[in-house]
């Protein structure tokens, strides 16, 4: 019987934004691994995602999950022109920080730190929030992401001007728009269908 809300097992709830690896515990029943058909496996795109309760929950709507995943991968991994990967991840982390998605922020802060090697700046964004002073270019990307994340959206010509002033061309600006917008999709699923859990080492600190 899957028509019920799940009570997650006892776990340590993360209370701050962190770059630590977190788990995610579903509030609704994911599909069982043994019930996944070829259609479901195709929708997961990466076979390893059959191990993830998040993706096994979303795969209840396989068409939408597959399209979501292919949109996500192109926005973040397609290296043809536009914004460097590190700064697409910065936009994702800033969006997640502003919406308050501790899980999403942890993943994309890790990526932003790895690709940029600016660990202290990423940690400052997590600790202080979207007003943290990083540098002119990162501040402009964070401010644009925040304006795109506000509801109603407050992104305007002044954000475009500021991004251009720090060296972004229009292809890079489109990447900021795509990355911040995509995390408004992802944050809402992660926040509302389950909760994060601090794992092993992180929980013991």
């Amino acid at each position: 019987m899957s028509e019920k809300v799940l009570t997650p097992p006892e776990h340590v709830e993360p209370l701050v934004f962190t770059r630590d690896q977190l788990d995610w515990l579903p509030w609704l029943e994911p599909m069982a691994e043994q019930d996944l058909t070829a259609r479901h496996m195709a929708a997961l795109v990466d076979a390893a995602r059959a191990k993830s309760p998040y993706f096994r929950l979303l795969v209840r709507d396989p068409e939408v999950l597959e399209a979501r995943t292919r949109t996500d991968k192109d926005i973040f991994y397609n290296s043809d022109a536009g914004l460097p990967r590190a700064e697409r991840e910065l936009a994702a982390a800033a969006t997640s920080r502003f919406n308050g998605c501790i899980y999403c922020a942890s993943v994309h802060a890790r990526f932003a730190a790895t690709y940029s090697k600016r660990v202290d700046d990423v940690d400052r964004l997590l600790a202080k929030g979207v007003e943290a002073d990083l540098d002119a270019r990162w501040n402009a990307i964070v401010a644009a992401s925040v304006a795109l994340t506000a509801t109603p959206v407050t992104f305007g010509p002044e954000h475009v001007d500021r991004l251009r002033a720090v060296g972004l061309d229009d292809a890079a600006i489109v990447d900021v728009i795509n990355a911040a917008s995509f995390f408004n999709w992802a944050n809402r699923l992660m926040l509302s269908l389950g909760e994060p859990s601090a794992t092993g080492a992180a929980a013991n600190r």
Partner: protein
Amino acid sequence: MADVIDSLADIAPGSALDTIRTRRPQARLHAQATYDSLFKPASEADASKRERFAIALFVARLHGKQEITAHYGKLLEADPELQEAVRMAAAAAGSQGPWGRYPVGPLSAEDKPGAADRIALPVRDQLGERIAAALEHAHMLVYHPRDAAPAHLQALLDAGWSTTGIVAISQLVAFLSYQIRVMTGLRVLQARPR
């Protein structure tokens, strides 16, 4: 069918932004595929088109963008009574996000508490319990997603939504949150030539 984001953002074939968008072909193709799957679903067993169109129109209205509201209003054209009930529900529910509470701890200093949406009579009866519950959930997802809790999902189950239906309508609201932002961002960029 035309690409909905291009059409709502007024991106003409061969324009500068069209050329830029061709460099993220999978994102463009699959954002459209998501839209098609959500609004022309393979199955209506867990969420009907009528329900999907009503939720989409509500979310569009909460974002206050005329082009998007007109687009999703058109999907519900055949049902003017439901269209009007959604308009009333949205008019009573406007806010500015994101807000909400964090788990109790150091982040509590950043809490911005607010009240969940509760759709009142007679609009609630006009919408029906399933759609009313879905719109209340959509309001939380749009404006204060960090308040999400298992009780919100229980309210949807109690109103008759299945687990699979909840996944579908959660994707719908989340996807619109994306689509509206891309459309808005591209329009702003296009209106600001170098």
